[in-house]
């Protein structure tokens, strides 16, 4: 249960093609994250899988069965919405039981499953409340509870954490990961936040303008980005992309060096520049270095104790094994 295949799937709104032909296989039990900047088509892709939108052409299979024209209710998938989409007029218990009621399950079995889900999600004390009386994190858990009681073939998450504050987001991230460990059900998770993608995914699908730029594990994407877009999108702070003579020295049209792969020094190094803004995180400090003659700004990660200030001279040395080379089309060179 839970293998999803997209075969030459496209989607157009009128004359605008938002997803050109796309192929993707999601294996059973995988935690797959669709990530990309806003407007890249990741939510549309999720809605195609859910059945909330029609595909313009191509085929969607869920467990080898063709689901392309099945209505959402018949696909056996559960979805957690960005806005949670709880039913405001129903208690938490009724919210969670709603899909079971729609499936015509008998009352006793409904209660059993709701109680189990509430136990798993720490919602037992809130079952008689209305969604309006819950905090953001609790609402999120109700939405998840509503999804898990059905024992779906796969869970679909549409930016589920973007309405939570930063602290809660980290906690929920862990909870969802734990849930996946526990249930071993396929999960498809859409986000624009590459940190969420890196921390949660078994497999990341990077989307850009409706096109899959790369599919791979978080570390594959980090270590061997297939092109400049993925290189810039994965990793924080962003990879420094340098063009011109310095790239030519490496026989490439552009080279990329991550901030954490640059050694910094006050005395000597390969490249010389001047410190602009520095961001102190305590453990680390990020320096934004100007006047290197290579790029407008180069970001570098240094240790938190590095005593440089605005306007000081700084020397940078890239780790030669960690330099990414790109050709004129922006593709990775071996």
């Amino acid at each position: 249960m839970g293998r999803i295949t997209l075969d030459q799937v496209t989607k157009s709104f009128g004359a605008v093609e938002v997803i050109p032909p796309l192929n993707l296989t999601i294996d059973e039990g995988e935690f797959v994250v669709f990530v990309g900047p806003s407007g890249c088509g990741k939510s549309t892709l999720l809605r195609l899988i859910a059945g909330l939108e029609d595909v313009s052409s191509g085929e969607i299979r869920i467990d080898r069965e063709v689901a392309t024209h099945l209505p959402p209710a018949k696909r056996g998938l559960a979805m957690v919405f960005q806005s949670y989409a709880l039913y405001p007029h129903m208690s938490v218990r009724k919210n969670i039981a709603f899909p079971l009621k729609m499936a015509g399950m008998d009352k006793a079995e409904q209660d059993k499953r709701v109680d189990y889900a509430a136990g798993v999600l720490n919602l037992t004390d809130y079952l008689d409340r209305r969604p309006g009386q819950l905090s953001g994190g609790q609402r999120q858990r109700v939405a998840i509870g509503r999804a898990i009681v059905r024992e779906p073939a796969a869970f679909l998450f549409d930016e589920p954490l973007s309405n939570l504050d930063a602290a809660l987001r980290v906690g929920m991230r862990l909870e969802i990961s734990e849930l996946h460990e526990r249930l071993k059900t396929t999960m498809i998770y859409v986000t624009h936040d590459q940190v969420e993608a890196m921390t949660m995914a078994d497999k990341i699908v990077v989307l850009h303008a409706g096109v899959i730029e790369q599919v791979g594990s978080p570390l594959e994407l980090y270590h061997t980005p297939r092109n400049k877009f993925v290189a810039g999108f994965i990793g924080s702070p962003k990879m420094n992309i340098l063009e011109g003579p310095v790239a030519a020295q490496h026989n490439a049209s552009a080279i990329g060096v991550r901030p954490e792969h640059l050694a910094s020094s006050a005395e000597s190094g390969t490249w010389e520049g001047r410190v602009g803004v520095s961001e102190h995180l305590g453990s680390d400090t990020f320096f934004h270095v100007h006047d290197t003659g290579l790029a407008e700004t180069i970001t570098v990660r240094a240790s938190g104790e590095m005593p440089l200030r605005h306007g000081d001279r700084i020397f940078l040395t890239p780790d030669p094994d960690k330099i990414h080379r790109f050709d004129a089309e922006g593709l990775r060179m071996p």
Partner: protein
Amino acid sequence: MSRAVTPQRKAFNTALAWLIGLLIFFPILWTVLTSFKTEAQAIADPPIWFNFNWTLENYFTVQERSNYFRHFWNSVVISVGSTVIGVAIAVPAAWAMAFVPGKQTKNLLMWMLSTKMLPPVGVLVPIYLIFRSVGLLDTKLGLVIVLTLINLPIIVWMLYTYFREIPVDILEAARMDGASLRNEVIYVLLPMAVPGIASTLLLNIILAWNEAFWTLNLTAAKAAPLTAFIASYSSPEGLFYAKLSAASTMAIAPILIMGWFSQKQLVRGLTFGAVK
């Protein structure tokens, strides 16, 4: 936040607003007062304000002479009937336009509104003749049909604006949860739209209750609602002020009270959500 104003300024505002408010309300107040006077006191010179012998006699007379309650019942049947049928027809249409908008939705809504621009007098003759030939003249059913049709565009618009405020996510969640279209509407949309539907009902009952073109032209003695009944006081009974007042008070009281309760929704409803 508005700043504190001086007590003098506030007192001045209060006095002026109350004065104007009472002036605007005065005809209604005067009608209610007069309905409790005797005919002689009603036309006394100078006018008597409160110092008269309060009597309910006029109310009894109106009921006895002209069977007031039959007309009252006609009004109830016609306004409630046309509104409920209108809402039943409009809910599916409003659902479709609010949640499955297409390229034509806006044009369709505008077209519906434009049917309201059709002056009723332009179709008076054919409706009158059709009704005469099929026996709908002076029947409650005939008026229910006409009022349903003339208020349908407003009902669709009002429901549409209320439905649009329901996040489409929630309906999609129901769809993902395995709800059929019917269940989606019954279990999710309608319970969430209760306040909107209630104010749509209320406002359209008020509009239908006070409708005075078709009710006057398509009814005679039998099916006449209160609007037409009161018009019969035009002359010469209208000169019996106390009875005219009693009949008028009874005709407007129920709807005035409903109206006061609905004044908040009135603005939203009648401006199709354009003013909140």
